[in-house]
């Protein structure tokens, strides 16, 4: 996949068994995302946004079809290989921040680097840089419980980008934030996208986010209903 595509899905189907019946969460999704895009999956609740992000993040596997991310076919990866892909190349941001409460801001951001086996000096440098990106260098010692929602989500962004991943997947990152904080973290992510070339793929139904997206992919009932690139955005 040397054609500048970081994500390519082909006839992607995800069916959840539900007792006797089953739910088709994704239905024949064909999608390409280029390296460096700042794109979003939009659509009502239950349209399959989270399911798609989870598969692209190698946390879940498709029922049929193929999902190729950073040159890896998700459906063929072992647990360990999938973890390795996430570890090296993918950053996650969640609606509910999901910081580890017993660790300080610094330690939360440090965690991915420990998994990657960074040296202490390299860790310190990377964490410092990541915290500066999100304007939280002065809160390194704080615990998550001492932070506001906006600050918590900034820490989560720092944690996602500290290892300089190629791809960041953000599942409704503003759903628990007010307008000011929502725009704030989106501007930060735009900066990171521009300066580091990191690809961002959001899921959202929040107008404030959609304003910032350069491409919106609309999902309805697990199908791509619309795919618009906004010129000049």
């Amino acid at each position: 996949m040397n054609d500048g595509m970081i994500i390519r899905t082909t006839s992607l189907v995800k069916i959840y068994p539900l007792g006797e019946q089953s739910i088709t969460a994704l239905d024949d999704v064909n999608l390409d995302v280029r390296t460096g895009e700042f794109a979003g999956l939009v659509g009502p609740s239950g349209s399959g946004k989270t399911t798609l992000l989870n598969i692209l993040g190698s946390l879940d596997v498709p029922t049929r079809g193929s999902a190729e991310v950073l040159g890896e076919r998700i459906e063929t990866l072992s647990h360990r290989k999938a973890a390795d892909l996430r570890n090296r190349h993918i950053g996650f941001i969640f609606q509910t921040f999901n910081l580890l409460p017993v660790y300080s801001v610094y330690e939360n951001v440090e965690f991915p680097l420990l998994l990657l086996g960074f040296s202490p000096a390299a860790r310190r440098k990377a964490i410092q840089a990541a915290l500066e990106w999100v304007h939280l260098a002065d809160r390194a010692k704080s615990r998550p419980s001492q932070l506001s929602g906006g600050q918590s989500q900034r820490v989560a962004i720092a944690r996602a980008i500290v290892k300089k991943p190629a791809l960041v997947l953000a599942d409704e990152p503003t759903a628990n934030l007010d307008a000011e904080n929502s725009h704030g973290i989106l501007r930060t992510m735009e900066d990171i996208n521009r300066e580091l070339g990191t690809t961002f793929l959001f899921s959202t139904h929040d107008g404030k986010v959609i304003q910032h997206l350069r491409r919106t992919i609309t999902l309805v009932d697990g199908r791509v209903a619309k795919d618009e690139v906004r010129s000049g955005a």
Partner: protein
Amino acid sequence: MMTFLLKGVLRDRGRSLFPFIVVTTGVFLTVTLYCYIRGAELDVVRSNANLRHGHVKVVTRAYAKDVDQIPNDLALLGASAQIRDLEREYPDLEWVPRIEFGGLLDIPDAHGETRAQAPVAGFGADLRTPGSPEPGLLGLANILVAGRLPEASGEILLSAGLAERLKVGPGDVATLIGTTMHGAMSMANFKVAGTIRFGIGALDRMGLVADIADVRKALDMDDAAGEILGLSRDGLYRPDRLAAVAAAFNARFAGSGDEFLPVMQTLRDQPGMAMMFDRIRDVTNIILGVFLLAMSLVMWNAGLVGTLRRYGEFGVRLAIGEDKGRIYRSLVAESLMIGVLGSIAGTVLGLALSFYLQAVGINLAGVLKNVSFLMPIVIRSRVAPAAFVVGFVPGLLATLVGTGIAGRGIYRRQTAQLFKELES
């Protein structure tokens, strides 16, 4: 990474404190009980060996057969020569002659008429030869209640309980009515030198201790001994080694049918002792097993609650790029830390209490009314080397088993499901 985990464990009380307390408590109880049982065993062995059976005992075959009747007519003759032989052959054992006897103790009034009478169970031991190990083996100096130890011929010690019942004390005269070795009635006058309390039920009710020379004279047993006891010089009973010694000794006379040939028996061969040793071993194993099981169950439960509570965390960690195996191993590593710390704490506490109980002991007078072997009333703990590790095995095993089972939930869940719990 290990430091990172340790930080998490220490900061998250819910994760560490409860399991830590469980392990500490379990290990503490295990160590304490173990030391106490070891102590009981050692006390019982010491009492039975020193007061009655030795670590090994040499008697005639005929005597061995009817031992419960104390058949002094079947005693060993030429005891001093036999002891010399035994000393030469087994220098690591100390050999002492004993004569057990029963009889009636008669206390005369001022006119020589019987004032009081009671049955006695006595034994003669070498109390007066300078350098004799017997006063030390019997611990006479420590258990003297009144008066002094026998110094002159004809002086005896009476158990305090018996003396009280007969209303006699040091300086009083008592007549022993018994049977000589040849079956005739014997009457011998003794003087009470002192009273003693063994702290052992049967002996304190009717015990009498006399110098063996006086007993030989009274019962017409010149140079005879009912029994010759052998005790290892370091005081330790080694059942296996002594069983081999006794077997070899007895094999020597295997061809002959002579009833008066000597036979060697170990402490374990004595009535009630084998059962006692086996009981103690069983009880020890059961206690260790029960604690292991109980701790494992509690830790399993704590592990389940802990992992349920932490599915969110596992979801994030999966998303960040840990695989399930690694998360599982980190859980086990965490529990290992808690297991080690808890086991250390429990062992330290258990040893502390055991050292205290080794010095003080617990009085079991009420519990020990009807036991067939000699049982000291105050049981002390004994901190044996094994006590330093005996709690560790169950402590660590329980934590690992508990967490190991509980943590499997990580594998059973779909990755996406763990991840979903983030959103709720």
